[in-house]
């Protein structure tokens, strides 16, 4: 079981680049890369909230549970 982060899908849908999003939500590109590549071990609510606000989506659009 694992949580899949569909951030790259949402970025493609919104036609936004990672570095642009990183700058808009105030985190480093390196940290955003950790999130995109699925290496992240935890995601702060503040970060999730900022991404959702910027990409105009719901947490469920970004996170997916796979058995």
């Amino acid at each position, binding site marked *: 079981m694992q949580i899949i982060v569909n951030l790259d899908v949402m970025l493609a849908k919104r036609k936004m680049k990672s570095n642009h999003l990183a700058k808009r939500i105030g*985190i480093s590109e390196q940290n955003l890369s*950790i*999130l995109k590549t699925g*290496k*992240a*071990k*935890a995601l702060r609510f503040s*970060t999730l909230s900022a991404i959702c606000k910027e990409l105009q989506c719901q947490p469920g659009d970004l996170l997916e549970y796979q058995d």
Partner: protein
Amino acid sequence: MAEENLQRIRRISGTFRQLFNLFIITLPAATIIFWLCFNQLPQSFKNDLPVIVSQNLPLSSLLLAITVSAIPTGIILYAFIKLRNLFSLYHKGVIFSVANADCYRSLGYALIYWAFSKLAFVPLISIVLTAHNPPGQKSLVLSIGSADMANILIGSIVLLISWVMHEASLMEEERSFTV
């Protein structure tokens, strides 16, 4: 300032790494040379042995003594290798990782093993050194002292600290992957 301190730690650790590289080579060599030149050494070099050796020893006894000495020497060598690895990590700027904690754990075990190895070394070396003595003058020495107990205690404390460090490094790793 923190970066300056890290640079200093790296530089000093690099020196210690080289020092332990030297010890790793010289310790076994010194042990072998000690026993091979044993008959030529002055008495002051033999004062730390558990038995008094007043006569020359045959080559077979000297070779056996090298073999028996390999027990504590091997453990000290193991500790030196772990210290070299630890300073190597510090030299690379790796201060707070699981690998560091593993080095400390190995050092803790080395201290405990060393105490037990001395318990085995003293009787074995006393047998080897007195095996060629006339009947009635052969010795079997058993020794356990407060220093051995202290080594076991310190080793146990180092093991506990390494466990805490291991858990802390896992927490640090998790923190670094929290976005």
